[in-house]
């Protein structure tokens, strides 16, 4: 096992350029993404029916003190048109003493906007120091009041993006590194290894450990960057954090083995990896919350996607400090997928079936 493991590293170190580039690009992107995630503002379209122009502008300026949102002026017909065409998910009607939402489709930033506006309007009233009545106050708060913990939502969302992107990128790196197996398959060195009396268990363990470690280093570095440069917090449940990452990476290496075993050439694999990585990131919730995927077929499909459980378990640990018993089902899925993919991969790689 160590023979194979050391050999892979030796080869990697002889040609480190590709890996390093890949690694560097990943880190660059992750950094950039993390930063834009925390400093980028969400644009919000607004319109008004009863505010005068100067009052409207003043209100917008005041609202834009926020570093979370950027409120923009528009008018009712324009936003209605855009909502109808699905170009906009919602807009806000701003009035003197209250606001309301025009909603086309639900959006995760809407509750955040609502919360922010409620706050501002309340404060405005407070400062104006008019005498308040109970019924007045009700006016500020939009009609359908739901008790969502919006602050929690925001952290949840941010975590999901940070974790999702990290896992998405590491999936890329690991799978692309595993192209080396496909290359060995075509140049005959793989067969030479398989024909040796070394047990296949040992060969696969060595390979597994190698790719696992590459992934682990990358995730580790990404997380360090997030905490050090961007100030993202991963909570303090390090044990479960490590366990989640490890189980996810294990499943990804197994997935890689399966893909390698099913293709004939490295070129095919090169074509397949982006498709698999991106599709599973989309369906597994790396780019947007899983609630956005509503197609039943796709939802079923998302059940066999490791990144889904990787994101779920990691965000649960980070945001909620979830305990082992809450994570067990996610871990179970990851282990089951590892076994499934791994078995297929090892079966077809051990001996050519033709």
């Amino acid at each position, binding site marked *: 096992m160590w023979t194979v493991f050391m050999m892979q590293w030796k080869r990697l170190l002889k040609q480190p350029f590709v890996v390093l580039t890949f690694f560097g690009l990943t880190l660059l992107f992750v950094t950039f993404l993390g930063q834009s995630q925390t400093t980028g503002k969400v644009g919000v379209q607004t319109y008004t029916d009863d505010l005068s122009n100067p009052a409207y502008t003043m209100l917008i300026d005041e609202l834009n003190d926020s570093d979370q949102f950027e409120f923009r002026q528009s008018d009712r017909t324009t936003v209605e048109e855009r909502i109808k065409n699905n170009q906009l998910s919602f807009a806000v009607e701003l009035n003197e003493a209250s606001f309301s939402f025009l909603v086309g489709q639900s959006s995760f930033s809407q509750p955040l906007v609502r919360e922010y506006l409620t706050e501002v309007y309340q404060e405005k009233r407070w400062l104006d120091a008019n005498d308040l009545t109970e019924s007045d106050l009700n006016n500020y708060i939009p009609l359908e009041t739901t008790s969502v913990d919006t602050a929690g939502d925001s952290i949840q969302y941010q975590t999901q993006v940070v974790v999702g992107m990290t896992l998405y990128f590491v999936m890329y790196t690991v799978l692309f590194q595993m192209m080396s197996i496909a290359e060995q398959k075509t140049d005959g060195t793989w067969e030479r290894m398989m024909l040796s009396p070394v047990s296949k268990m040992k060969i696969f363990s060595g390979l597994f450990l190698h790719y696992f470690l590459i992934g682990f280093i990358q995730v580790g570095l990404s997380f360090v960057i997030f905490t050090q440069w961007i100030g993202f917090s991963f909570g303090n449940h390090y044990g479960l954090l490590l366990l989640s990452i490890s189980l996810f990476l294990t499943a990804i290496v197994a997935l890689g083995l399966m893909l390698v075993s099913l293709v004939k050439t490295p070129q095919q694999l090169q074509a397949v990896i982006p498709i698999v990585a991106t599709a599973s990131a989309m369906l597994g919730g790396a780019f947007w919350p899983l609630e956005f995927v509503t197609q039943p077929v796709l939802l079923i499909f998302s059940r066999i996607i490791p990144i889904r459980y990787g994101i779920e378990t990691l965000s649960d640990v980070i945001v909620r400090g979830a305990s082992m018993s809450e994570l067990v089902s996610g871990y179970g899925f990851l282990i089951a997928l590892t076994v499934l993919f791994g078995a297929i991969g090892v079966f077809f790689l051990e001996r050519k*079936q033709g």
Partner: protein
Amino acid sequence: MLEVQGLSKSFKDLQAVKDVSLTLKEGESVGLLGPNGAGKSTTIQMMSTGLTPTSGQVIYNDKDALKNPKQLRRDLGVVPQDIALYEELSAYENLLFFGRLYGLKGKALKTKIEEVLALVGLSDRKKDRVKNYSGGMKRRINIAASLLHNPKVLIMDEPTVGIDPQSRSYILDLIKQLNKENHMTVLYTSHYMEEVEKLCDRIYIMDHGEVIASGTKSDLQNLMQEEETVWVETLEKNQAFKQALEADQTITQVIESDQGYKVIAEKREDLLGDLFDYAKVHHVKLTALAIQTPTLEDVFLHLTGRKLRD
């Protein structure tokens, strides 16, 4: 020692190997001969347990080697048709790795590596990266990598393809030495008749996935005892003369070569006389006329009606 029985392999709708049976006895040197695409490599891969056959058996020392490949894998050295080495590493590092896979380590491994390097004549270049080697040197290291664990059986898939004559004869001598002095059982694959003739005690000829003939060299030549090979050397080529030869009922093959024609015909007393007559009629100047013992090339031609390297 090692045998395969009724081996077949289909790839989708192509049947690459059909019902092939081969036997290797201990200490023997056996040739597997056939044109491109005959199914030699496929047969060898199944024989070395690297490829699962569609049907058939691989038997090593009376045991089913497909179910229990370990013993065979331990005793087997396979030289693949393609260079199976890590190009970015040096020859030495490659040998180190493959040696370890066979359980060699420490001093024993180092000694063994030096030994095989000397055997293939590359001791002085061992630290160079394989990708900087010439084709012939790569081939030699490719062989060296299969010799580290003192295999009892050595299976070689066209180890001399695409290299200069010098490297080629070096390799052939090496194989002969391994077989005769180190008593390795050798299965040697090639589409070069001369190599197999020179090297092998027994020969199997494959074509289109089937074994079409087998036996010692003289067994195979005897297949042609009803026929005769005549070398007709002429001053210049003459199309009409060739057509006349081909039209003769008793002549089965006419093969044009640089200096003349090779004629395979039924054995009969007046054949040479007739050949003189044809030459006279078509004004062809003969420079030589000779009856030859058939080569394996001729045997293949006889069996398939095709030249081996077409």
